[in-house]
């Protein structure tokens, strides 16, 4: 079981209020991702749950038990650190066995769990090596193995993939998702990468300056962002925002249209512009269009078109938002409708 409830949890470092009181419930077996820009307090929130930082106010309950002042080891949570935090002088086997050794688990049970973890994580051939002799992805797996053998109520991941190269990151992302499907244990995952958040999460918590901007499933956040920040943060490439007359036509202060919801034409349309940079990815092409008439918030409008479309730098194009795909926001940046 691993149901974690945060009740008015707050954290301040001296005068600086990092996290104003916030409420959040994480259901048992959920894969929850905390996402937000650097310094938004997402790692601090994770460390509060882990018990590595003391809360300044509020209550943390794990399975209905008040764990606000429980030391980290007694909370039954396992954490995977950004730097993996493996013990360099111990072999992989001893690294994985360490938490069980501390808990005085019988040797036979230890061996059983190590073998299981090694099999799940493809580490069987490396058990006698030192962490220094492993690649980044293998070290990552050892760190996860050390967490698995504790059979925790919940796993906490603190930006675990940010030290890996792009290809490996995609692999590990899949492996962690698969692990979650197999173990069905609660997982809390912190990242600043919205792609990781979208692909892995059951529930995404978008944070900014310690405040929860929106909680919801990836598609909810994508389809109905609650405010301008979430709209701009979720989705890649970023949503385009228009203000002034363009927005007033929709009875809004700002409207937003995602790059994939703009129709491109070389003959007619709503907004006229010239193609600046065209990024050809093969499957898709991203066009950065400099508009002539549109009242945009940023200098360019990003458009996602089919990879086959032969548009180049300097071409003139017309852009039209697709029906019903326009997001409207009021003067305070909140969603209308």
């Amino acid at each position, binding site marked *: 079981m691993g149901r974690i409830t945060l009740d008015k949890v707050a954290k301040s470092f001296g005068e600086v209020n990092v996290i104003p009181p916030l409420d959040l419930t994480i259901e048992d077996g959920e894969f929850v991702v905390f996402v937000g820009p650097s310094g938004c307090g997402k790692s601090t929130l994770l460390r509060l749950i882990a018990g*590595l930082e003391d809360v300044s106010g509020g209550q943390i309950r794990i399975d209905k038990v008040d764990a606000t002042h429980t030391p980290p*080891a007694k909370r039954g949570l*396992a954490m995977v650190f950004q730097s993996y935090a*493996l*013990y360099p*002088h111990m072999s992989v086997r001893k690294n994985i066995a360490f*938490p069980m050794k501390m*808990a005085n688990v019988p040797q036979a049970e230890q061996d059983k769990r190590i073998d299981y973890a090694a099999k799940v994580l493809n580490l069987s051939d490396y058990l006698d090596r030192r962490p220094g002799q492993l690649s980044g992805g293998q070290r990552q797996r050892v760190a996860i193995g050390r967490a698995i053998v*504790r059979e925790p109520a919940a796993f906490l991941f603190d930006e675990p993939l940010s030290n890996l190269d792009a290809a490996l990151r995609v692999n590990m992302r899949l492996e962690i998702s698969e692990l979650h499907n197999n173990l069905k244990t609660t997982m809390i995952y912190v990242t600043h990468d919205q792609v990781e958040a979208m692909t892995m999460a059951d529930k995404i918590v978008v944070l900014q300056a310690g405040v929860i901007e929106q909680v919801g499933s990836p598609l909810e956040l994508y389809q109905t962002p609650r405010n301008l920040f979430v709209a701009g943060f979720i989705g890649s490439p970023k949503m385009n925002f228009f203000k002034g007359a363009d927005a007033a036509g929709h009875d809004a202060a700002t409207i937003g249209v995602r790059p994939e919801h703009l129709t491109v034409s070389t003959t007619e349309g709503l907004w006229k512009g010239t193609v600046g940079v065209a990024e050809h990815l093969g499957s898709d092409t991203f066009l950065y269009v400099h508009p002539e008439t549109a009242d945009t918030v940023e200098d360019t409008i990003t458009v996602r078109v089919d990879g086959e479309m032969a548009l180049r730098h300097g071409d003139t194009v017309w852009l039209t938002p697709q029906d019903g795909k326009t997001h409207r926001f009021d003067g305070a940046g909140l969603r209308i409708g």
Partner: protein
Amino acid sequence: MATQHSRAAARLMNAPAVFVLLVWMLIPLCMTIYFSFMDYRPLRGVADCCVGFENYERFVTSSSFLSSVGTTLLMVGGILAITVIGGVLLALLLDQPIWGQGIVRILVIAPFFVMPTVSALVWKNMFMNPVNGLFAYLWKFFGATPIDWLSELPLFSIIWIVSWQWLPFATLILLTAVQSLSSEQLEAAEMDGASALSRFYYIILPHLGRAITVVILIQTIFLLSIFAEIFVTTNGAFGTRTLTYLVYQRVLESQNIGLGSAGGILAVILANIVAIFLMRIVGKNLDN
């Protein structure tokens, strides 16, 4: 970088330094070996060449030889134990964030800058003197009889004085090692359920292993040749005569240069045996 040409040039430019070093080291060594095979007592006008191993035999069979080797080992071992254990504890203490950290650290390092003779004299006269020393006052304050440190506990007193001098060195090296330990490792261990003591034993101590070997190696090299502290406190009396001090006594007090040189060569051999052992341990530890 390393073309044929530049390598040749590098050898050529290194040559003078290597030559000077060799001369500096080899000439005294060769002369000592030469003297050690002579019956050479300048004050009596004796300088007979080639008495074979007679000097070595006399040095080794004299009753003071074995006891001096024992004293040397006890002294070096005692100082190493105090400085390494004390150094680890002090390093952990100094790693804690405290007010006035900078000044505290400078104060801790200060004893290292005091000359051995001066520090030994300060300890002898200001602390360990049985009449006017601070310890004597302390003992009297609690109603105990003051201890005459240098005649009742002479070996321990010298170990204490030298440890005081070398503790800063050990602390400094160990402190940098403590600071290089990533805090995430300690946090991971904490999450894994390790108590403060287990964290020290399983995480911090292995991390310090390398620094501890370096401290032991460097200190042993210097501690085998302790002289000033013995000279100004006990003059080698009361069982504080180390091998180094014995050689000094043979050369300067007995005025027997041949005998002293033989002792010196033996000391070099013994020191090398110790060094070989230490190097092997260090090598094992540094390989990782």
